[in-house]
Structure formats: structure tokens, C-alpha cells
């Protein structure tokens, strides 16, 4: 079938350099981590716990607050729609360190909207949500735009209310893609570093997440940093696999 575009073997050969380039660091990290067999210190254990807690809260917030925004952008035509659509991607092009400074200037104790969240776990969640939200919003907009309108129209003809149509038809139809977007943004939140260290600071058990502990660890205890990096890698890998499986699951029926 695909013969018209050539043999797969040649294409794979052409794609090999980047694949090898991507895999060597992963391989190096795992080999070293297995070789070291270090036990995680309590300090790093706290970082792992804090990272999971904050990134899960961030994901829940992003999904809860982001879904209506994605829906309105995907389904309606209104004056500032295109502006909003463009602004959503802004955090992606923001260097995370710049995002951290921007968050300080916005929500710092003397910021535009003064809060006392800086240097608390709330600040960690804010930094994560800021950088991770575009990944969910983009996926959700994409999902809502492409769902099947026929079912919705016939449900409306049968007298279903708008909210019922959204919760019973739209959301289930887009479920796999929404979950996929949620997991991607969770993974991004889990890896968040630059904005966190600037806005939330670095305090064990309060604001020191895994990426911060890795960064600080490599200067003082390289083996711990390697172990923690390997753990993050494994988690990220399973998250990606989960997203893939869900996406395939959503396509099959």
C-alpha cells in the first residue's frame, strides 16, 4: 500500500539519528541509577510527595476551570474569540523563568494583585498551572471542535436541555481526548522548574518539588539526583503510555 512513498526501512534509517539521540540520555540515566542503587533520603521523599500532590491539584484546577473556556472557544463565534485563542498559547512561548518573574510581579506581596501566596505550596500550584494549562486547553479545544454534531442535534430535537447535551453527549464523546490533554498538562506540571523556583522559592517539604530537588541535588548529592531523575523518567513514561492507550481507546468504537 505504502510502496508509493518508498520502503519503511529507508525511512527508519533516516529517522534513526534523532531516535538514538533521544534514547542515549535515557539509557545513561537508567543504567547509572540501577548501578548506584541509592536509597531515597527523607528530604527527597518529601519532594516526591509534594510534587505529586501539587501537580495533581494543578491538573484538577486546569481541567475544572479550563473546560468551559475551551468549550466556548471551540463552539461559539464571538468578538474576542480569536484573541483568546491566541492568548491561550502564551505560557508555552514564555520561558519558565520569565513566567516566574511575571508571577512574582503579578501575585507577589507587592504585586499587581498582591497576595501572600509566594513561598507557599499554593505558589507551587500557581506556577504549575500557569505553565501547564495550554496543554490541556489546546487538547480540549481540538476535541470539542471535532465532535459529532448530528447526535447533539437529534438530542436537541428530542427536547434535551443544553446542559444535558453537554454532560451526556459532548463530554463522553471527547472523554479520551480530554483525559489525554489532562495527563499531558499534569506531566508538564510535574516537570515544572523555572517558574516554581522563582515564584515559590525552595524550601524542603513546602515548595521544593522533584525538579528543584534534582537541581539542588546535582550540586551536593549527585547519586540522589540521578535516582530522582530516573523516578521522574519512569513516571513520565507511564503517563505517555497511558495517554496513547486512551487515545487509541477513544478511536476504536
Amino acid at each position, binding site marked *: 500500500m505504502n510502496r508509493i512513498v518508498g520502503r519503511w526501512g529507508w525511512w527508519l534509517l533516516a529517522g534513526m539519528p534523532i531516535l538514538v539521540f533521544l534514547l542515549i540520555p535515557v539509557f545513561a540515566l537508567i543504567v547509572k541509577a540501577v548501578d548506584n542503587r541509592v536509597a531515597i533520603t527523607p528530604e527527597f521523599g518529601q519532594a516526591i510527595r509534594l510534587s505529586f500532590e501539587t501537580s495533581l491539584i494543578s491538573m484538577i484546577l486546569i481541567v475544572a476551570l479550563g473546560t468551559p473556556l475551551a468549550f466556548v472557544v471551540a463552539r461559539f463565534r464571538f468578538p474576542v474569540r480569536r484573541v483568546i485563542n491566541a492568548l491561550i498559547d502564551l505560557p508555552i512561548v514564555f520561558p519558565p523563568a520569565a513566567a516566574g518573574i511575571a508571577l*512574582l*510581579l503579578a501575585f*507577589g*506581596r*507587592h504585586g499587581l494583585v498582591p497576595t501572600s501566596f*509566594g*513561598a*507557599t505550596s499554593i505558589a507551587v500550584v500557581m506556577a504549575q498551572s500557569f505553565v501547564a494549562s495550554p496543554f490541556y486547553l489546546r487538547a480540549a479545544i481540538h476535541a470539542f471542535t471535532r465532535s459529532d454534531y448530528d447526535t447533539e442535534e437529534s438530542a436537541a430535537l428530542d427536547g434535551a436541555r443544553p446542559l444535558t447535551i453537554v454532560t451526556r453527549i459532548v463530554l463522553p464523546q471527547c472523554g479520551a481526548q480530554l483525559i489525554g490533554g489532562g495527563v499531558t498538562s499534569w506531566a508538564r506540571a510535574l516537570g515544572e522548574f523555572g517558574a516554581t*523556583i522563582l515564584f*515559590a*522559592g*525552595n*524550601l*524542603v517539604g*513546602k*515548595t521544593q518539588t522533584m525538579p528543584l530537588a534534582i537541581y*539542588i541535588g*546535582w*550540586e*551536593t548529592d*549527585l547519586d540522589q539526583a540521578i535516582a530522582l531523575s530516573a523516578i521522574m523518567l519512569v513516571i513520565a513514561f507511564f503517563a505517555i503510555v497511558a495517554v496513547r492507550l486512551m487515545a487509541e481507546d477513544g478511536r476504536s468504537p
Partner: protein
Amino acid sequence: MRRKWLLLLLLGGMSPSVIHAQTLNIFAAASLKESASEIARQFERRHPNITVNLNFGGTQQLVAQIREGAPVDILMSAGFEPLKSLHYDKSSLLLFATNKLALVVPSGSKRVQSFQDLATGIRLIVAAPRVPVGRYTDEMLLKAQRELGSAWVGKVNQGIVSREQDVRAVLAKVSLGEADAGVVYVTDVSTAKGKVRSIPIPSKYNVQAQYPAVRFNDSANASFTRGFLKFLLEADAQKTLKSHGFGPPNTPIDHKPKTR
């Protein structure tokens, strides 16, 4: 034709090492940002054929970079402790400056008026324990503990909201008003003029920071690196350090690498 290209490639690959012979890579503690830059310019003026590359950071960051193989000729450290894990030319070790700690508060803030106020439930930002200034801060609190008691120090420690990566990060956060106070070096205060104001630390609690410099055995520019280290103790460099608030290196080395 092809051979010509190969030759060009080879020459191209070689030229950086030729240039390298005229370049000094100096890693310096964040607190030396202004003074070391100025000293480097003075040194370049005296030796027009030498270019000095400077890399600033928390000393522990620089040490980690060196351990991972970063090209370095000279390290200007903010303490002796970080040197312990490095292989450097032991005979080159020299002390070129001293420093003291300072308490800084946002210029508009009235919450902290004296050193004792640190234990009044204020938000304090200090450097991480592995950063030299963070270690000095802990030493200072230990000294204070002997007189003001462990309850006092416990209260201060409770108020610590972040432990930053280098002294300038502490200063930046205090400048933004993110903390009621921060502990930096006296030499840092002037770099955030108008944004922070310093509160005196009683001298009985204050800690003297020692600034040693060392050269590395494998550095290709042995004569330049020795020349630069010598230059650090000459009048020009010492005048520059003094103008930025550093103390003279006249005190005997009492911080000799201890074994823990």
C-alpha cells in the same frame, strides 16, 4: 579538492585551542559579580593579549560544574568548604578578601528594626545550607543561639520561607518585598541601592566569610593563571575589592578545610 576541505576543517578545529591559550576561564562566587568583573578588566588592560571569561554562580554550583568537567583555570570561592571536593593546585591557594554578613529588609518595610526582630514571626529568606552564605548564616544563628537561646533560633528558623541558590537570589527576593528580611553579605547591599536597607548584625554574632582563590593543575595557561592570582593581592585589585566593601585578606586562615 576534497583534501583541501579536510585541511580547512582540521585547521578550523584547531584554531579554538590556539585562541584558548590567550583565554582565562575564571569561575567566581555570585557575591563577587561586580568586583571580579572590574578586576578582570584591570587585568586585561595590563595584559592586552589575554581575554578573561567570567562565570558567576553560587560557589557550590561552580564546584559542581567543575566536577563535571567544565573548563576552568581559576576558582574564586566564597569559602573553603566547597574546595574540599575539588582537585586543585594546593600550592596556589591564597586568601584574597574577607566579607561579613548583613541583614537586609525591603526599603519601605518597618517590620524588622533590629537583629532581635528576626524572631517576631517575620518572613525570612536565606541561602541554601550548601551555599557558602547559607552556611555562614547558619553559623551566625548558632552564635546567636548561645546567647539568645534555642527557642529564639527556633522561631527564626520557623520564619524561613525559602532557601535560595545564591546570595543574589536572596537579595532579589527581598528587593521585591517577598520577604521581611534576608541574610546576604555586606558587599551585596550596595548592588540593590534604594530597594533594600541594611540592619546591623551585632558583631558578636556576625561571621567572617573568607574568599580563597585557587588554580587548577590541568589548566593550559599556567603562567597567566599564576599571574592572575598574584594580581589579586596587588594594590589595584585590592583597592577594587575595598571599594565594593570587602575586607582585606590579612586575617589568618582559621577556616582551614575541616574534616566532618
